[in-house]
């Protein structure tokens, strides 16, 4: 029964990460109150070590592990590196916020680490139960983190909404899985796609099952019409957790969706052709609804939440064109996710710095930031310009790559709508930038008491530099991602 071909050493990064999380939880017992930032610093040091472990143990590997449940390949390697890096940056920007606003500070960092573990397992699983459990591990950590500011009613409400929507979507996903299982008899991607591709007349139960699975995943990602929870959750969550939701969780969800599409849907060509249309419509709706509603928002985090829905739409349209031009789409999708992460960190780190002490929420409260805290204002401005896709920044390059690959895939109209949605986004990003640079500060909000400590400053500087450098000179990153696309090019 024990599979012979399971080289468990390939799971070294996950074992180390689980151990690290337990060490961090334990260190919380030893480190005295008031010095809890050292728990976070321990976690950061551990994660840096983990980066080395990951690079040495699984780089260049392409192997199935443990009954073919997990696939350790270059795709999962690249995403593991991204997740760990996002984790490090999130912990660094959390430090001051956690110290000032939250109780039970030590556990915060341990939960973040376990969330990374959930993401890692999620993208390398080749079997739906493993993927589901990993997704739940990630979601459980996020439920707790969203509700971490536990004396803040908004955070409570965000958490309970998130947990109810999350459980509901899990139930739908599982029902779909049970329908597929009752036809196929297995939950492995390869078996499911094999059965779907083999049968000429598609079984209606299998079709409905796949539909329910996709609805479940759609809920988790937050694409229209399943996006209702995103604005409330993003607004209520503590700001660094919002950043983590918008960056880490979103990347993980899309990496998972792409994996499912490649593993389950693409081999069954007829099925996939129908789904391409459905997903394309959903992508258009997501882009227009997200960017359209973002215009009228007055709160910064809500505006960013809708903007993040808009970005989901763009990413979904890249998923739509998977198939014939697989390699180039995966390449541009991966590049987009990295560029999006870097850019979003420029925005979210600065917003965390602004909000950690004063608790400002409204866009107009950011007036005068450019005079009082020029670095923070510059960081937000550069990040927003890049998100809107202006040249010189990484946002332009990633959008250029992605839109052209969508157009090459035969969906020129979808690329056109994506460009139009980017133009809308430029409008509301400019409102925010105008508030920071042009409007005069109101007397009641003062930003002078903000202290930007070195961990935060590091993240801000790194993300600004990366936003600009990757925008001007993207070759090294593109080469690295080329490796992934080679895997999927027949």
């Amino acid at each position, binding site marked *: 029964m024990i599979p012979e071909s399971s080289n468990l050493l390939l799971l070294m990064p996950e074992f180390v990460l689980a151990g690290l999380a337990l060490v961090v939880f334990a260190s919380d017992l030893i480190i005295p109150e008031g010095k809890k930032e050292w728990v976070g610093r321990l976690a950061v040091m551990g994660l840096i070590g983990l980066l080395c472990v990951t690079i040495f143990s699984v780089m260049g590997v392409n192997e199935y592990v443990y009954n073919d449940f997990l696939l350790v390949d270059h795709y999962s390697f690249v995403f593991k590196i991204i997740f760990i890096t996002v984790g490090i940056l999130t912990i660094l920007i959390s430090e001051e916020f956690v110290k000032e606003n939250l109780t039970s500070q030590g556990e915060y960092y341990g939960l973040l680490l376990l969330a990374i573990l959930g993401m890692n397992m999620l993208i390398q699983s080749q079997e739906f139960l493993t993927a589901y459990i990993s997704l739940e591990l990630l979601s459980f950590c996020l439920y707790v983190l969203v509700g971490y500011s536990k004396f803040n009613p908004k955070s409570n409400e965000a958490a*309970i909404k998130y947990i109810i929507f999350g459980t509901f979507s899990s*139930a739908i996903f*599982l029902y779909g899985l*049970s329908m597929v*299982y*009752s036809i196929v*008899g297995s939950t492995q991607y390869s078996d499911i796609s094999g059965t779907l591709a083999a049968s000429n007349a598609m079984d209606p139960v299998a079709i409905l099952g796949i539909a329910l699975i996709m609805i479940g995943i759609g809920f988790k990602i937050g694409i229209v019409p399943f996006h209702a929870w995103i604005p409330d959750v993003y607004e209520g969550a503590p700001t660094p957790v919002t950043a983590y939701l918008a960056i880490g969780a979103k990347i993980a969800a899309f990496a998972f969706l792409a994996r499912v599409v490649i593993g389950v849907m693409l081999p069954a060509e007829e099925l996939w052709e129908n789904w391409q249309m459905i997903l394309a419509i959903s992508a258009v709706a997501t882009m227009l609804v997200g960017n359209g509603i973002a215009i009228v928002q007055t709160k910064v985090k809500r505006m960013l939440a809708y903007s993040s829905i808009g970005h989901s739409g763009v990413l979904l349209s890249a998923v739509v064109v998977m198939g014939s031009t697989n390699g180039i789409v995966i390449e541009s999708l991966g590049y987009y996710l990295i560029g999006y992460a870097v850019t979003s960190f420029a925005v979210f780190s600065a917003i965390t710095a602004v909000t950690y002490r004063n608790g400002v929420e409204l866009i107009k409260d950011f007036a005068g930031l450019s005079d009082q805290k020029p670095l923070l204002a510059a960081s937000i401005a550069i990040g927003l310009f890049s998100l809107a896709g202006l040249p010189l920044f990484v946002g332009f390059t990633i959008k250029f790559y992605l839109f052209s690959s969508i157009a090459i895939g035969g969906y020129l109209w979808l690329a056109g709508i994506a460009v139009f949605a980017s133009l809308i986004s430029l409008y509301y990003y400019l409102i925010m930038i105008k508030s920071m640079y042009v409007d005069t500060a109101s007397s009641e909000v003062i930003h002078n008491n903000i202290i930007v400590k070195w961990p935060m400053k590091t993240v801000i500087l790194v993300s600004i530099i990366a936003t600009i450098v990757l925008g001007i000179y993207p070759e090294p990153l593109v080469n690295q991602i080329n490796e992934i696309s080679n895997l999927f090019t027949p």
Partner: protein
Amino acid sequence: MLELIHFNILSVLLFSVGLYGVLARKSAILIIMAIELMLNAVNINFIAAAAFNHGNGLFTNFDGHILTIFIITIAAAEVGLALALILRIFRNKATVNVDSFDIMKL
């Protein structure tokens, strides 16, 4: 004679009742109860498929039963976490009305 489809239909009915409960109820605790019904529908479906199909094609080793064990585990953990949150909300608001945080619907 009992057939697989009997169990499938039972599970569909249970799932729909749960779905109605999730969409129609306002109180968080009631929504969680309805979600439990949906998860039980999933479990019936898994076990029935595994039990009837045993030894038939890819159906080996009662995988459906194993999946059910995992789903029950996760569901229990989820309920624990959700109720902890509800208690926290109840204490913060110093109100006796769990309904006052209207979960937005549809």
